[in-house]
């Protein structure tokens, strides 16, 4: 499935690039990431616990950053497999400077397989979009030195 889109980040492109290359930052930005351990040049072993409402699954896989054209373009590959199936997301991220900070455009493919694929078709698209949203949100928070795991106290209380 195609995954394309763009997000505006309120940080400068150099900073965004830095954050996107930093495994410590990535480990806190990738939704559900339990650990990210370097296994080679720009390659990390990924332990993921995906949690989405009642759905949960542990995945073991890797994150690869490649085809760097610093500081504007690189390819990110996230793959993992577990009991509920396997997933792979691969895409090129292009950073450009805009008035508000940085625009990160992404263009890639997401695949799922195994049990998730045969029962969760209708949710792949919305879930992928949700994960991307969460990823950038957590990335930006780190750019501002905030704890990405602390949820915003959104004004949801009407009383």
């Amino acid at each position: 499935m195609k995954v394309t889109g763009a997000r505006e980040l309120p940080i400068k492109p150099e900073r965004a690039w830095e954050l996107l290359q930093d495994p410590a930052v990535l480990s806190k930005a990738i939704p559900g990431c339990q650990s990210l351990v370097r296994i080679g040049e720009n390659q990390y072993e990924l332990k993921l616990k995906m949690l989405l409402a009642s759905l949960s699954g542990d995945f073991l896989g890797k994150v690869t950053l490649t085809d760097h054209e610093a500081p504007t373009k690189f390819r990110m590959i996230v793959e993992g497999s577990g009991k509920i199936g396997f997933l792979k997301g691969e895409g090129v991220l292009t950073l450009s400077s805009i008035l508000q900070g940085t625009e990160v455009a992404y263009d890639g493919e997401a695949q799922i397989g195994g049990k998730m694929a045969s029962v969760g078709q209708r949710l792949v698209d919305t879930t992928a979009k949700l994960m991307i949203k969460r990823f950038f949100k957590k990335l930006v928070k780190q750019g501002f030195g905030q704890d990405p795991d602390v949820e915003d106290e959104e004004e949801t209380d009407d009383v």
Partner: protein
Amino acid sequence: MATTTTPTTTKTEKYVGQRLRRREDPRFITGTATYVEDIKLPGAYYAGMVRSPHGAAKIRSIDVSKALARPGVIAVYTGQDTKNVGGVICGADLPGLRKPHHYILAVDRVYFPGHPVAVVVATDKYIAADAADDIEVDYEVTQAVTHPEKALAPGAPAVHPEWPDNTAFVFHQVGGDPDKAFAEAEVIVKQRITSQRLVANPMETRGVVADWRAADRTLHIHTSTQIPHLARTLLSIMLGLEENRVHLVAPMVGGGFGCKLNVYAEEAIVAFVSMKLNKPVKWIETRRENFMTTIQGRGHVDYYELAAKKDGTVTGIKLKLIQDLGAYHQLLTPAIPTLSVLMMPGLYNVRNIKAEVVGVFTNCVPTDAYRGAGRPEATHGIERMMDILAAELKMDPAELRRKNFVGKDQFPFATATGLNYDSGDYAATLDKAMQISDYAGLRKQQVEARKQGRLMGIGLSTYGEICAMGPSPATPAGGWESATVRIEPSGKVTVLTGISPHGQGEETTFAQIAADELGVHVDDITVIHGDTAIVQYGIGTFGSRGTAVGGTAVYIALQDLKDKITRWGAMFLNSEDVHFAGGVVTDNKTGQTVALGTIAAAAYRAMKLPPGMDPGLMATKFFEPSNFTYPFGAHIVVSEIDPATGQIEIRRYVAVDDIGNILNPLIVDGQLHGGVAQGLGQALWENAVYDDNGQLITGEFMDYAMPKASTMPWIESAHTCTPSPVNPLGVKGVGEAGTIGSTPAMVNSVVDALSHLGVRHIDMPLTPEKIWKLVSTHAGSQAA
């Protein structure tokens, strides 16, 4: 001589032809029918399969240690343990056919998603499920290929590395002089027509209970199958057992539709486990497993060409048929598309045909017989092409068909594909369907509707089919059928049939036949099937053969028996001038009678025997049909499309079917309705979709749309009757008719609704989105 017995009820009214409610139903409506999953054997273990999540991968290693450590787990076996068990058997053959060895558990590679790689055995199914999750398989994933045309493209991944072109066979058939027909054609129309993969989806999935009794060296198997005897033969070969030491039972079977006309790896795996452990073992397929690992139907990409004269006379048909076989051959896989070729001309007198069938391996579960098996695809092809030709010639599609029909005085009719159509009056069914639907009135309505901007379609199919499978030379495992009729000492009657009904109602229809022939009450007849230890060898239920072949076997066994009864009666009445009717033998001169019950008692008591007669009253007959039968019909679908959404509404469904004589109209209606539902399912909703990475993405009822009560139209059903000369019952078979006739009628209706916009063809399923896109892109291009 003993003459005092309980008199058997006699009856003169005919049962055949009556809408008799089914005699087998009480067990189903009270929840007491026994299906495989209902069989509980003391001490039985439960097996669970570990399956590949990948379409194509090498197996690097399998770690079973965690599963074995789990309390309640008895054993785990992998492909290394079972590799000496015989492979899954393909019964079909074609010249040059490539047959991959189909291990019952994958050994070093997996070839389709769901491919079993290990079996866990536990004390109950909950533990088996836990243990299956414990098993770690390390795969090296390779690129899968799931579409047959992509598999044929140069550089495509090889499903079986030994055959890089992914081609299992190429089959040619030519009749007449097609090249000349096309060279001389005044009109040629061409179309690529696909027939998507479908999942048979009987409501009962597959299941096996195997019980190896070491002391008796006998394997007892209950399995959900349409072919108990063939399954026993094939399993005994796979397991290396003597056939007479395998006792196989098809208990109540919750639907088959062709997908249980097979012998699967799991049946052998479960038997293997039982033999290893000396314990009964049960395995019940989940729906998810059923989607992934039970054979699927259809899977065609067809390239059609029709040659015709300007007056509409069709002179030639060319077909290139690309069959998606899946990763292996199941029992009949490669034979199915050859049935499509036989069916190519449909009901039309076309003398020149040319077909090329390419069987292609893909990383999908094998295709095989699914309701209609090859014939729905062919019928869809020719019926679509007739509409395309009609549009090209600006002829009414009904007129074009009528012009090309084989005439009713041309039977028996030898087709260009080598068949010999038995009997028919094709124009009569079309006339009747047109009359019931008020075809002329509908066409007027359509003109009005178009003026209002509404999209109304009238679609018809005049279909034919090849049924009553079939003469043995044309059927891979033999096409005869067997029956034993036994009159018990009490005069009650037991019928043992070699077919294996699983919803078709032969416990009723065969009792109707027997009751009429013997002149006894239908409740005096018991029909038994499915148990290889009780019933003589038989072939099974598929290919619309149950009544036409199996029923005929019963009928001829009854004739044999009637002869014996008459001879007994003659002895009793001390007369040679006697006849048997209405349950009694009557002396034609004196009018004296002797009842069947009296004769039966005497036949077993055997104080005195008629000359040359053995004791007992039983006959076993094997019926070998001389030909297939060829039912046909005309279906008309009136549809209306919501131009804003592409949603299709079926306004009317008219089906006129000629299936020869009808034994029980109630049961026949039910068969037709069910067939139509499956045919509409293909036309409108059902689709087994594999993505390019080898994943089946419509793997549950959540995404694979089945016909539902609210989506099915009311079916207006009627008949014409041209009895088949092939069997003495004059029946043709009804199991597949509805499925074959309905699909093209539905598609033709929707294409017709859009034809004024220039739409000529739409591939199935006709999803609202597809229709909406066509309406949006063709809007404003209104032709007429």
